[in-house]
């Protein structure tokens, strides 16, 4: 049983295997965001799970790393700190190393979701 679920963080639909019920928490397989299932009928809808910002971005980055087989380097804490500052000042987890606060730069940013990490050896 495969379900297509729209993720409002990376603005794409991902495939979730197995039954889902409302209230259940699922992880977007594209960006690692944790989503809560709102409704199952007529179609599945999900929304960002409300969590405190630090838990949310730590879980999301750890989910994403696990899904992609990436590991964290020694700058992890500084990047998490920067993401929390961006969230506080600009309202979402925009890449702390970029000035443009646009959807593509919501962490994990579009290039990182598109595997640019393979080329650069690290995220932006």
């Amino acid at each position, binding site marked *: 049983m495969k379900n297509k679920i729209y993720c409002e963080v990376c603005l794409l639909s991902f495939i979730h295997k197995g039954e889902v019920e409302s209230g259940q928490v699922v992880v977007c397989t594209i960006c690692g965001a944790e989503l809560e299932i709102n409704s199952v009928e007529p179609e599945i809808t999900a929304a960002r799970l409300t969590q405190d910002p630090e838990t949310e971005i730590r879980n999301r980055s750890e989910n994403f790393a696990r899904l992609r087989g990436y590991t964290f380097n020694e700058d992890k804490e500084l990047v998490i700190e*920067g*993401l929390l500052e*961006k969230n506080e*000042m600009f309202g979402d987890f925009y890449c*702390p*190393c*970029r*000035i443009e606060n646009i959807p593509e730069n919501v962490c994990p940013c579009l290039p990182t979701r598109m595997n640019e990490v393979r080329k650069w050896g690290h995220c932006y």
Partner: protein
Amino acid sequence: MIKVYSLSTCPWCKKVKKYLDDNNVEYEVVEVDLAKGEEQKKALEEVESLTGKRSFPVTVIDDKAISGFKQEEIEGALKDEK
């Protein structure tokens, strides 16, 4: 005169500023993400003219613009500073 174009949230910018602080180097810092309107526009134009792109940090020592946290390059430029 040393000028650092920085983003207040960027880890590499924090490392450049910390390196300069640890070495008691006087410098002017422009937190481009916190600058407003005209000031931000001007700073972005300066960064783009110095490096050809909009990435941070940019450390300007005399006429040398160093992009990113490159400790050896910064150290070298500091020594050659007039």
